[in-house]
């Protein structure tokens, strides 16, 4: 983004950003003039805008010098300077020029020069020549060099009337020297008016609390956490306070920068920085940085002298030395076992050829073994290491040795005498302390060996960083000791010290395809010489290159010998199997919540499955997969190479859906394993204590206040997870406790309450004291629910042609929620359904199946209750023959035969009149007379199955008299509600019968005129007989 302000006359500077450029805007980038002049393009190193120069969080571009247009590297074969500038117009005034830069170089041999040059001044590049004078004349700030890492730069621009229109110029100047990358890079340029803004000071980082704190008076602050090791940049903008918690999730030296921001974000204080070094245990096969004297340290430190370390061993009595660690810091010459973490640091005793960086590229720190004082002890460090297959079967020792030659010999004479130069040795010992085979031993003597490797400054010899690879493949599973010794000369004077790092890598082949892709070549590990041959024909060497090509469908197994460069007799052999290979992800994890961190350590045991191309059988499952993509489920994910990986989750914890992807061949083949991790909230597990008082009492809390109400007083302290968590001091006031228990139970049960048994409804109270000594009243509200008591008739009589079977019941006690009527097996066989459900409010009306055979049916009535269970009831439904099987003729009442009555056959008869048996009337008909009008008749029948059951009755209404002369009883209404008033056109004795022939009511009214009676209370069909008049009424 670019902001440009043009002012023609000197004006009052306002608080604003006059220019800003992060090289992300294409239009702004086009305003920059790069590699100016005719000679600019001829320079061996030129300015570019691209990724190599980016230092913007989320950005892609920055300004950088490059000799290959892509990387931040430069050539320095001759003096040259190349220019990049941006024309700007600024009002007269003083400005702060802020930018980020890096550039190694070596002082004048390679540097960045910043200048504000009048627009009229020529600023051409020169591909052969030293820095032009104009660059020094208009230079602002200091020359910038000797920084591998990005850092902020600030310069002051004083704009005069003559320089209002000017050029912001960046010049890369280099001389003929050793090129030390990175080349010059610039990003995030801002020009602001120089305004007051409280500077940041006293910037410190507390590793225990992960708190960055400072002093200042700005409106707010910007915080950067820059880790050069992995080029990670974390920016915290708008930090309102003078402290900020910065969780360190990556290794290496963290450079913290803080600046104040004022005037609505238009004024900035200079960046203030501090550093902290972080290394995360568990990421390395050998924790070479863990130095100490304890058995818990990975590297145990010793001191000794020539006799101890060299002579005694020569004579077969190897000595270990004195367990001692001498660490006075990396800047102390006397330190013998110390850690160097400054990526920009140059060893002070090395000056030529750019000097020796104390930390090699690609490492976060190195160990210096040995002091470089004039005389003193020698230093030793030993590491115990259990060789693991795969990732760790090749030990890479990066080392850079600095020794002062005393002109002694390289070794002792056969008698163990003689002077000897300082030495640096690497020994690998087995579990009993004996040196294992010679291929694992390395030996350096000052001034001896390959001279091309040494840089000599007087009698000081130093060699630059080199890597020696030792194969430990033969010792997989064994615990070995790696011993490094920097020994002074035989007089314990001329020092020898070395910087070293250690790492492991897999000694496996590259180029193996995976999945459905065919392998067409193998590439052996770097750092050896090679011999390729077929497994079944080892004597024939097929190739000696590092890469060996095969046919993609080749299924033969090949072997390659990797020979040590320093000792070709030392080698190990790898198997090259071109058959299909597939990744299998296997990752486990272990959670540790401590130091206010949720730490999860992942263990990777993923492997490659090799499948025979022809048979499909698994050939091998031994090759480990080290490259795992971890998706942590907290928004972070990363690729990690190794058998273990640690990730720090948010302190708030939670449930994280994670997965790990085992990848082969740079992700061509992958396998994913998913898992869910649940972590505690570390911040909100504060402790608490509670003081209990009774209502009316008071207590003094920590603040001195007397309280008599519920109070929480919070202090802060570290909880069990090491986090600052609130510690709540509760005061709980207990009122008179009143607890009421409501119990409902069924009649017949009991409740035990406070040691007493209760069986009846009522409220019962017990006075107690609480555990806090306060009054407590317990009340029991007991409701005894009566068991359901229901009355219903044992026998219900219906006619076979009735539509329903009413089953009236009366609830004496309890409640009914539902009713089920369950017919017996006879009923089921004759058409009843297995279950008739009814709601509590419903009348039980069981539908009568069509053509129901008269008989006795037993039905079980189950009454569901919401309260207490009740026993089912059993009733008998007596289904009589329909009265329709009786025909009335004048003077004859006869039963219809089987062809007319529905197929019933009868074998016995007994007629009843008005419920009295008629003696002698034992046939299928009776002859009646006029005197029998209104009489009720039914016949008891014996059916073919032996059932004895009567018909439903008829009322004889026929007579010799013409039917028209039979009086009709008028009833109003003919359909009435229970208890409703019914009007009749008759008087005298009035009887009411139900459908079963039972008399349900009798009235004696005056003989003449209309009469009123009440309709029966239950639903059903009723017959009203008044003298010789008959009528029917339905009650609903």
């Amino acid at each position, binding site marked *: 983004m670019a902001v440009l302000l043009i002012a023609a006359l000197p004006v009052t500077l306002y608080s604003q950003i006059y220019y800003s450029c992060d090289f992300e805007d294409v239009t702004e980038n086009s305003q920059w003039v790069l590699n100016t002049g005719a000679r600019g393009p001829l320079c061996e190193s030129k300015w570019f805008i691209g990724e190599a120069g980016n230092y913007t969080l989320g950005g892609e571009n920055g300004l950088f010098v490059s000799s290959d247009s892509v990387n931040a590297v430069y050539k320095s074969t001759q003096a040259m300077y190349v220019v990049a500038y941006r024309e700007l117009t600024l009002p007269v005034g003083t400005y702060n020029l802020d930018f980020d830069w890096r550039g190694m170089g070596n002082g004048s041999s390679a540097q960045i020069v910043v200048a504000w040059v009048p627009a009229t001044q020529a600023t051409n590049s020169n591909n052969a020549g030293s820095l032009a004078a104009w660059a020094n004349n208009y230079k602002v700030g200091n020359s910038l060099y000797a920084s591998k890492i990005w850092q902020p730069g600030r310069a002051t621009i004083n704009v005069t009337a003559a320089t209002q229109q000017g050029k912001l110029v960046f010049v890369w100047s280099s001389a003929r020297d050793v090129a030390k990358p990175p080349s010059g890079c610039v990003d995030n340029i801002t020009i602001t008016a120089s305004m007051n803004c409280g500077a940041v000071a006293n910037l410190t980082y507390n590793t225990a609390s992960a708190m960055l704190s400072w002093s200042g008076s700005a409106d707010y602050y910007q915080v950067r956490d820059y880790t050069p090791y992995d080029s990670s940049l974390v920016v915290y903008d708008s930090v309102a306070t003078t402290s900020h918690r910065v969780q360190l999730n990556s290794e290496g030296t963290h450079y913290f920068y803080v600046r104040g921001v004022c005037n609505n974000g238009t004024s900035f204080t200079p960046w203030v920085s501090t550093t902290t070094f972080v290394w995360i245990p568990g990421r390395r096969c050998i924790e070479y940085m863990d130095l100490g004297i304890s058995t818990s340290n990975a590297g145990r430190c010793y001191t000794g002298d020539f006799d101890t370390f060299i002579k005694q061993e020569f004579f077969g009595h190897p000595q270990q030395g004195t367990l001692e660690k001498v660490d006075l810091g990396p800047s102390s010459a006397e330190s013998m076992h110390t850690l160097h973490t400054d990526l920009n640091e140059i060893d002070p005793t090395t000056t030529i050829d750019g000097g020796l960086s104390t930390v090699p590229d690609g490492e976060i720190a190195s160990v210096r073994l040995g002091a470089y004082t004039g005389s003193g002890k020698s230093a030793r460090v030993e590491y115990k290491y259990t060789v693991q297959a795969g990732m760790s079967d090749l030990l890479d020792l990066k080392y850079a040795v600095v020794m002062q030659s005393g002109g002694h010999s390289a070794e002792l004479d056969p008698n163990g005498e003689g002077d000897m130069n300082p030495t640096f040795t690497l020994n690998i010992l087995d579990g009993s302390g004996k040196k294992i085979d010679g291929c694992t031993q390395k030996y350096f003597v000052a001034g001896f060996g390959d001279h091309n490797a040494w840089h000599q400054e007087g009698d000081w010899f130093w060699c630059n960083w080199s890597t020696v690879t030792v194969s430990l493949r033969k010792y997989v599973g064994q615990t070995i000791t790696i011993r490094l010794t920097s020994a002074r000369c035989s007089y314990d004077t001329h020092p020898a010290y070395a910087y070293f790092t250690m790492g492991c890598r897999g000694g496996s082949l590259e180029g193996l395809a995976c999945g459905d892709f065919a392998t067409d070549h193998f590439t052996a590990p770097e750092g050896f010489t090679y011999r390729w041959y077929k497994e079944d024909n080892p004597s024939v060497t097929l190739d000696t290159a590092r890469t060996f090509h095969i046919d993609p469908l080749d299924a033969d197994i090949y072997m390659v010998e990797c020979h040590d460069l320093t000792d070709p007799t030392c080698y190990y052999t790898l198997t090259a199997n071109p058959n299909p290979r597939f990744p299998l992800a296997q990752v486990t994890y272990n959670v540790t919540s401590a130091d206010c961190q949720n730490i999860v350590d992942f263990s990777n045991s993923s492997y490659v499955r090799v499948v025979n191309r022809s048979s499909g059988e698994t050939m091998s499952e031994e090759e480990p997969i080290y490259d795992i993509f971890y998706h942590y489920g907290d928004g972070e994910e990363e690729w990690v190479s190794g058998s273990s990986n640690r990730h720090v989750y948010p302190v708030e914890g939670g449930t994280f859906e994670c997965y790990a992807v085992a990848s082969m061949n740079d992700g061509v083949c992958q396998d994913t394993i998913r898992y869910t991790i649940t972590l505690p909230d570390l911040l909100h597990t504060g402790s608490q204590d509670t003081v209990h008082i009774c209502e009316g009492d008071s207590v003094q809390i920590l603040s001195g206040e007397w309280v008599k109400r519920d109070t929480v007083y919070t202090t802060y302290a570290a909880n069990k997870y090491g986090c600052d968590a609130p510690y709540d001091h509760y005061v709980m006031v207990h009122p008179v406790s009143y607890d009421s228990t409501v119990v409902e139970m069924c009649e017949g049960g009991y409740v035990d309450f406070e040691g007493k048994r209760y069986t009846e409804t009522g409220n019962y109270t017990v006075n107690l004291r609480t555990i806090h000594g306060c009054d407590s009243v317990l009340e029991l509200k007991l409701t005894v629910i009566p068991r359901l008591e229901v009355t219903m008739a044992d026998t219900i009589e219906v006619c076979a042609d009735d539509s329903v079977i009413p089953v009236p019941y009366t609830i004496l006690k309890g409640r009914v929620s539902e009713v089920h009527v369950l017919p017996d097996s006879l009923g089921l066989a004759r058409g009843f359904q297995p279950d008739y459900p009814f709601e509590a409010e419903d009348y039980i009306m069981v539908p009568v199946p069509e053509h129901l055979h008269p008989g006795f049916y037993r039905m079980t009535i189950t009454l569901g209750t919401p309260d207490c269970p009740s026993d089912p009831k059993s009733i008998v439904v007596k289904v009589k023959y329909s009265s329709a099987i009786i*025909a009335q*003729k*004048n*003077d*004859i009442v*006869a*039963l*219809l*035969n089987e*062809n*007319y009555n529905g197929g019933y056959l*009868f074998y016995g008869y007994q007629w009843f009149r008005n419920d009295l048996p008629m003696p002698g009337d034992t*046939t*299928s*008909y009776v*002859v009646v007379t006029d005197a029998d009008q209104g009489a009720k008749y039914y016949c008891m029948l014996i059916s073919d199955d032996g059932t004895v059951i009567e018909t439903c009755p008829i009322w004889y209404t026929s007579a*010799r008299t013409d039917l028209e002369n039979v009086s009709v009883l008028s009833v109003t209404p003919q359909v009435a509600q229970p208890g409703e008033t019914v009007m009749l056109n008759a008087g005298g004795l009035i009887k009411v019968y139900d459908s079963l022939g039972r008399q349900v009511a009798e009235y004696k009214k005056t003989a003449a005129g209309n009469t009123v009676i009440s309709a029966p209370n239950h639903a059903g069909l009723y017959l009203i007989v008044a003298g010789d008049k008959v009528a029917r009424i339905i009650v609903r």
Partner: protein
Amino acid sequence: MRRALYILLLTTCTVATATAQFHKTTDGRVNHFVTFSLAGGEANYFTSSRASDYAPSLKDKLGADGIFMLSYEMRKNWFIFGFGAQADYNYTRQQVGDFTEIFDRKDREDEEVHYAYRFSDYTDEQHVLHVSVPLYVGANIGYLLYVLAGAKVSIPLLSLHKTTTDLSTDGTYVRFIHTIEDAPSYGYYTVDEYSYSSSFDAPEIKISPFAEFGFRIPVRSRSGRVGMRLGLYAEYGLPLSINNKHLLVDYSFVDKNPFTQNKEQLRSSIVFNSPLNTDILSKKLSQLSVGLRWTVLINVTPPEHICMCDRDF
């Protein structure tokens, strides 16, 4: 009929032979007698036949005859010839087996019903008075015995019959189980005795061959002209015609709708005919009578020689 002729022939031959033999023993003069006789015995139609399996059976239960005869006899030696006139009373009681007659009718509600008349203990008594003209020949056999044979022609003067029976009626409905009985308003009456008397058609002419055999009873009289004989006779009546076209029970006067006719009316309307006039018989009835006859003879021969020695009557 054919059987009657065979018996007549046989009797005549027997008498002729006896007479011829008697003639051999006595020489004779012709005597003229006037006789009157009284006879009585059992009569039986031997009816147990039935027109068909469905027809009720008809059986004689009792039969009796009473005969008074006045005749002229001529006798010469042993030969007897006579003719005369008879008054012949016959009583027969017959019984008909139980039977039922069913008619499809409609009852008072116009409902179809099988209406049944059920008869039991059905008894018919017949009283018949015949006038007969006998003609006969005979012979005295020896001193005591005699035999006669002949035939007579009878003509009924009076024939009465009386039927009594137990009758019940009932109705059977298609839709009911049992037959409805004892429902007077429907004409279903319980068993009761019904009777009916009337004349009936006895056979108009009856030829009855007869034979008699007995012994002479000596009678001491001053004139010596009276004689007696006592004999056993058998007659077999053969009706030449009979009227059997009548129904045993005639419902012509009975109302089909019981609603309009009660029991008494039924009783007075139903007509029972003599079984002899009905077609329940499969054949004409013939009646055999067997009995005793006492005959008084009075010699009316003019005296020529009153011979005191002739004691043949």
